[in-house]
């Protein structure tokens, strides 16, 4: 390899070759998304092209063997469990961020941050297992059978909490110190400073954290699959057994054939589009944060 070159203003030939090679690799990495979308579309095409989309909302029920593909109960379960998880994990996660920055002594804050990071590293199947053997019996004592929408919400909340907490932590750390000093100089109380200065200043970061957490909750499979009970029905109470879109794919892919398989790919496509929208929104918010 040549270590030196004569003209330092333009890339040497080897560097040009290297750049082209790297460009090819990067393109390959970027193409994975296109490939995923393409294969999802290709596999779901058999159902999409000979039946209108309304099919998935107006059929009598989800009975793939009789060509009935109503995904509404599953869609409802997915949305409800994610919403519930967000309602629980959102405030708790933001409170954790505030705790680390404005309440805990520095050493405790460090330990707490470590703990949240550990929590973020625990795999979803372990959360699901723990929910199944510990949480579900507890909920079952309240109202049998225990595996229910409520259990799913609790486990999901525990899972997305670290995401919210760590992003809230980063957003709060990015607030200019001058803002906080100004608030202190005005003699605001601690909560006054948080509610009046810190939270509004970190607003965009917090919202994008919540959006990312929602994306995680919507896409989570294992934890929900293990604790939600998996009966296909519209939930009428928190204690009803439900099946989410993701759990449905995991349960039925093993034996699905033909149109049934295609219908599962359609639900995968729908999930991916939902998550894409959320990521896009989070992105817009983050962009606003950098230019504000």
């Amino acid at each position, binding site marked *: *390899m*040549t270590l*030196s*070159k004569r003209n330092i203003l333009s890339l*040497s030939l*080897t*560097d040009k070759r290297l*750049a082209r090679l*790297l*460009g090819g*690799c*990067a393109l390959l*990495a*970027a193409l*994975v*998304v*296109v490939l*995923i979308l393409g*294969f*999802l579309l*290709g*596999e779901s095409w058999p159902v999409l092209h000979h039946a209108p989309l309304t099919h998935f909302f107006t059929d009598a029920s989800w009975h793939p063997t009789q060509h009935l593909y109503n995904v509404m109960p599953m869609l409802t379960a997915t949305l409800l469990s994610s919403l519930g998880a967000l309602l629980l994990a959102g405030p*708790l996660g933001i*409170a*954790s961020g*505030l*705790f680390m920055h404005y*309440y805990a002594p520095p050493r405790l804050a460090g330990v707490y941050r470590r*703990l949240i*990071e*550990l*929590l973020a590293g*625990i*795999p979803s*199947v*372990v959360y*699901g*297992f*723990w929910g*199944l053997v510990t949480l579900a019996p507890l909920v079952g004592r309240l109202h049998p059978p225990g595996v229910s929408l409520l259990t799913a919400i609790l486990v999901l909340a*525990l899972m997305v909490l670290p995401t919210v907490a760590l992003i809230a932590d980063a957003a709060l750390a990015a607030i200019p110190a001058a803002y906080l000093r100004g608030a202190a100089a005005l003699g605001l*109380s*601690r*909560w006054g400073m948080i509610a009046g200065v810190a939270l509004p200043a970190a607003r965009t970061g917090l919202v994008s954290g919540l959006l990312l957490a929602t994306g995680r909750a*919507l*896409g989570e*499979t*294992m934890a929900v*699959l293990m604790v939600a009970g998996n009966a296909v029905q519209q939930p009428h109470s928190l204690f009803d057994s439900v099946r989410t879109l*993701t759990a449905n*794919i*995991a349960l039925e*892919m093993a034996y699905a054939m033909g149109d049934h398989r295609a219908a599962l*790919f359609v639900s*995968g496509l729908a999930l*991916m589009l939902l*998550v*894409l929208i959320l*990521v896009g929104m989070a*992105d817009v918010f983050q962009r606003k944060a950098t230019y504000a």
Partner: protein
Amino acid sequence: MLKNRLATVLIWLSAALICAVFVCLLADMLRNGLPRLSWSFLSQAPSDAGRAGGIAPIIVSTGLIVLVAVSAAAPLSLATAILLSEFSSPNSRFCQVIERSLEVLAGVPSIVFGLFGNAFFCIYLGLGFSILSGGLTLACMALPIMINTATVGLRSAPDDYRLCAAALGMSRGAALLHLLLPAAAPAIIAGLMLGIARAGAETAALIFTSGYVDRMPDTLMDSGRALSVHIYDLAMNVAGGDANAYASALVLVVLLLIINSLASSLTQHWLRNRIMTS
């Protein structure tokens, strides 16, 4: 004033609640998992659908799947990171398209990766239910986090290095090889670790790509059961498998904790050095 007090109490309470739940979870894992854990558990094959015996073939399969994932994803992500940080300006169109697509990739749910892996690697490429298809699926999943960490590491290497290299007439390739990559090595390795952790924790993407078979794999084309899939199977499909599920979960959690804390201590150590030298 009352509001201030109330907020203080509520925030301390929520932090305490989170700590309590976490301690509960860990204590539960340790209490139920440790008694089963022994050398023979780690070195024996499972018997009676996993109720008895150990997890040796499952650990080997997990290791192979992660190895395939990392060896496919690492070169690709390193190349992409170098391109993003050294060979294109962050504002260029190409760069932004790649970064956007990686952002989207990071958000794709794992079950969708499973569907894709099944359709593409298992059926379209004809790899079947095998460790290879599982590993390649996980490689796609681990790409965004590995690229991201390596890019951040390379971008935060001081510009002095680049200027000095240019002043000495070094080619870009040489500057990378001798200066920038060594400087960013801890970040690149941390990215690798995070990718390994992401791959090791995955379940949903593996069920339909690497399969359920719990025998010792002979080649990469054999189906192999990952540790996380083993936990799922024992908990959901095998009555009376809870004790072994606990022990397997403990093994998985401990492995992931070690990898994650290695990654975070690497980045922290590296940051401290950076601050001291600059």
